[in-house]
């Protein structure tokens, strides 16, 4: 009798399938790569991303629970990154890029770990350039913050997904950065690409 009960319990447990709703990191990566290419692409080094790998669903970054049973992952689809707000932000970022890139080339501005720009140093800049770089970085970061927020909203991500989007974008900005640009790693250290 107890063997039958044990068998039934085992069957019940093994029949339970946990569906994890996770953050679609790979899709966001693809979207980030595309947006970065559209806005800041051009004369820089072409992205050297391993495409097949990027299409593999990434390991879930946040699981709501853990269980002894195998987890089944929801099929990952491309995310929405097209609406007027995102388009306007992309246009704004793209239009500004030619003004910012010279400061990136000179090392004055770097890409930080949050996918934003940071003024690393103002050495070698005239005061006019310092004012200009401050205004540009401030406007650029305002657009980038809005872009990350709009992407989260367009895809119905929770607000706490925004930092993840930022980190993914940070990687895309860094990957597609020109050689010589300064990148901030996850530990906050600045390195030259």
């Amino acid at each position, binding site marked *: 009798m107890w063997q039958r009960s044990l068998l039934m319990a085992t069957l019940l447990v093994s029949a339970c399938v946990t569906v994890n709703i996770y953050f679609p990191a790979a899709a966001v990566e693809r979207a980030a790569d595309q947006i970065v290419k559209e806005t800041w692409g051009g004369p820089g080094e072409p992205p050297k991303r391993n495409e097949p790998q990027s299409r593999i669903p990434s390991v879930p970054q946040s699981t709501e629970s853990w269980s002894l049973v195998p987890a089944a992952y929801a099929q990952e689809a491309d995310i*929405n990154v*097209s*609406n*007027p*707000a995102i*388009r*306007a*932000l992309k246009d*704004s970022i793209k239009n500004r890029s030619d003004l910012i890139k010279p400061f990136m080339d000179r090392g004055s501005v770097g890409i930080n770990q949050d996918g934003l720009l940071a003024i690393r140093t*103002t050495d070698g800049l*005239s*005061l*006019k350039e*310092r*004012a*200009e770089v*401050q*205004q*540009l970085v*401030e*406007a650029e970061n*305002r657009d980038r913050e*809005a872009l990350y927020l709009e992407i989260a909203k*367009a895809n119905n991500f929770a607000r706490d997904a925004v930092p993840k989007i930022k980190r993914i974008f940070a990687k895309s900005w860094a990957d597609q950065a020109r050689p010589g640009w300064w990148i901030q790693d996850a530990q906050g250290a600045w390195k030259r690409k």
Partner: protein
Amino acid sequence: MYGHFMRRPAIRTLSILAVLLLSAYIGLYLLAKSQRFQRWLTAQLAQRTGYTIEVGGLSLQLPLRFVASGVQVFKSAEPILQAPQIVITLSPWDFISKTIHRIQLNQPILYFDARQLLDSSTQGSLGVAIRHLTIYEGALILKTGDARSIDFRSVSLSANDLNLGQTIGLTFRAELPWLKSQAEISVRSQAGEAEAEIRIHHTLGNRVLALPGSNNPSRGHFRANVKLRKNKPQGWVVVAAGDLNQFMIGPDTTTGEFDIKTEIDPAFQEAAFAGRLAVTEFTRRMGSIGLTKATQPATATFGGHYSISDQLLHLHAVHLQSAWGTAEATAAVGFAPRVNLAKGRATLRQIPIEALQQFFPEPLRALAVKGIVESELEFAGPWPTVEIKGIARSHDAQIASEKLSLARLSFSAPFVWTNGSVLAREVQIQANSLSVNRRDRATFAADEIRINAVLEKKPADALNASGKMRILRGRFAAGDGSKVGEKIDLNAHFDTRVAAEKQVTSLAGNLRIDQGELLWGRFFGDLRARRPAADFDLDYAAADDTLRLRRLSVSLAGIGSVDITGNVERVTESPLLRLDLKTDDLQPAGAFDYFIRDTLKRSYPILDRLRIAGRMNFSVRLDGSAEQWTGQGNMHIRAGEVRDHSDKWQIGPFDLVLPFRVQLPVPPSRGEALPAIPTGTLAITSARVGSESIPPLRTTVAAWNNALEFRQTIPISIYGGTIEIGNLRWQDFINHAETVAFSLSAKNLQLQKLTEDLGWYRFAGTLSGSIPNVESTGSVLRTQGEMQMEVFGGKVRIAPVEVKNPFSGLFSVRLNARFEDIHLELASETFEFGRISGIVEGSVNDLIVTSGQPAQFIADLQTVAKTGASQWISVEALNKITVLSSGNEAGALYGGLATFFDNFRYSKLGFKATLKNDNLMLRGIESRDGKEYLVVGTLLPPTVNIISHTQQIGFGELLRRLERITESGSPQIK
């Protein structure tokens, strides 16, 4: 009984003795008074000393004090001593030892012949000692020959133990109260040579102070040995040598040694001297300024001659070598009729600036200075009003402190110093590297500073300095780097008056910045075009740490000037402002362009489109600290104008008179009782939107405690109707300019003109409605209420409306719209969609338009059957609907019989659509068998059904279809 007999003889003896003594004293008294005794006494003294002595009177006072009056002593008819009174006190015991107990000379005149004094052979010997000698208010007249003499007045002396009878000639002690010292002087005299030894000991009360570190009390703080030798036939030689051991003059001590040799000619007319003075430690004071104690040795050699007859001293070669530099000097000093300096020349070399630092004002004394000063001086004139002319120079000096450094400092200062007054003309100071680091890490620096000035200081008067200053390539930076100035060339003229006693510094003048760059946060200013300038006239009172601005006028070219008066209290701590600011002709356009447009245009592109004009004047009183202040005053803008750069709209000219009161960081709480708030007026003479002119309007406005409000409803006649803005109010326009509230109502605005000016499809109709509350908070503007458009024969009700980021590129509008009785025929004609008749109703909810593009909506629109309303659709409209829904031309679909008709009947037309993330989900008015009908035909021909097979349309595809609809002109049904 025995005692009785013994006491009586004793009393008798004592009585007899007393009578005898009394008789003797009376006898002595009478003797002293007798002329005979006086003649005998003067004769005896004349015989023993060789002097002629005259005594006016002699008397005896108790106990044994002889008072001689009118005493005169002559030798060879030459006066030696004249004294109104001489008091000689004798003691029986001293008398036995040939000692006079005390001699006091009151106001005597003593005459000395220098030659006789130096000639030791003339010395006599009395063989008498004087225990105490006091001279009170006497005069010494040193006769130098040829009826010339040197007078020493007001001489007082107190000497003890004078021995006049031994071979040494004279030994005495004297009190020197002005040196707090006691002197021991012994004079020896032998044939052809006299020697004097002088020792001075400092005293504390009656106790002689020992020398620190010395067990020999006889050494003295000052010791000199003077030898006088007759050197026939050349005259006399005087050699003096000695030393000083922490010898105190005033509060200071000096240690060193000296030797001087003087040769006096036989005629006693000329004295040639040469000497050396070496000190290892000395301190002095120069006026009220104490000099730094010098521990480095200093040596001075000097030589010259003194004309005794002319009383003229010639210093041929004075050479001073010390750690404070070297000096070479020559001079002539006359002593008659008074001290007079002539032909004085001095060259000072290698003087370290540190040595002069004590002359600097107090704050500068703490600086570390390096450098060498040289000076050439000429001095002449009577003492003490000697006039000194000269020039002081320095090259490549350095000044440094924790907060300040100044390198390659050069200065040249020609000056004249007369009787305590200093006048320095053409003072030139140049420094090539200035750096100032403040406590808050702010730094100031300049590559070059040039000052040309005139300085004048008179006794009991303030120091005046005037001149000009030029700073080249100046720069400053705040500690956090947020405020930086560079390449600043500044010219200034100044007139300074420093009243040290009153602790008041006055400064007047002007300054102008010819070029420079300024970074202030995000603001960048090129100063070359604006030429900032300031005129100032101010006082700084150190006693109460207050800056009093009589006048400060700051101006920027193309913007205007501001005049500032008032006080700044607690300047060096936490400044407290009480200032009045006034400007008469400020150009808002210049201020807007310079300070706002270029700074914020990247964040707020709309600012780049604005053009400002007009003139402004204001007066404001500022009270408070930098952290919390209140400004109250009046502002007047004349002929003001704000317009779009492409001339799409314009407000102005307008006139604004505005009393205001602002407070930072926060306004007073609303609960505070306030006096009646003054109001101003805004009068707009003209305004225009597109081609639509707005008639003049006038309203009241108040700006008080940071709140800006228009208390009257503002009626604006426009587009054939009226817009009324009411209760327009910014609660805190200083801190939260984006937070504004108002009510809005529109009456019968003619849409024909409105749509034309907006660049939309032109359509007729009116816009009316009332929004009782519009609130803008942060970047979002929300409305409550409803606007109503009467258009296309029906109504469109719009509510609520929400606007986000109104001033950024991400401008977004969200609203719900309800359509009622819209005549499709009018609408389709307006939008050139092809002819469609019928009445449509429905809603578009959650419509969001971002950057001019629809970003989201949920639409449900469909025709409603109404009596008398036909429902026809033209081929053109069918074609466009087909293109829009399928992406394909309708030609192939409407072949056959359809080509014979221009219009088709329908029973229903409409759609349900949602748009989100550029995906349009289009569904029909009816769903049958899985088909979505956009147009449902009638039973009677000619009729048509349009079935949508592609329900999802991407944004790009939708744009292409719309382009095709726009491009397609005539129907393409075949």
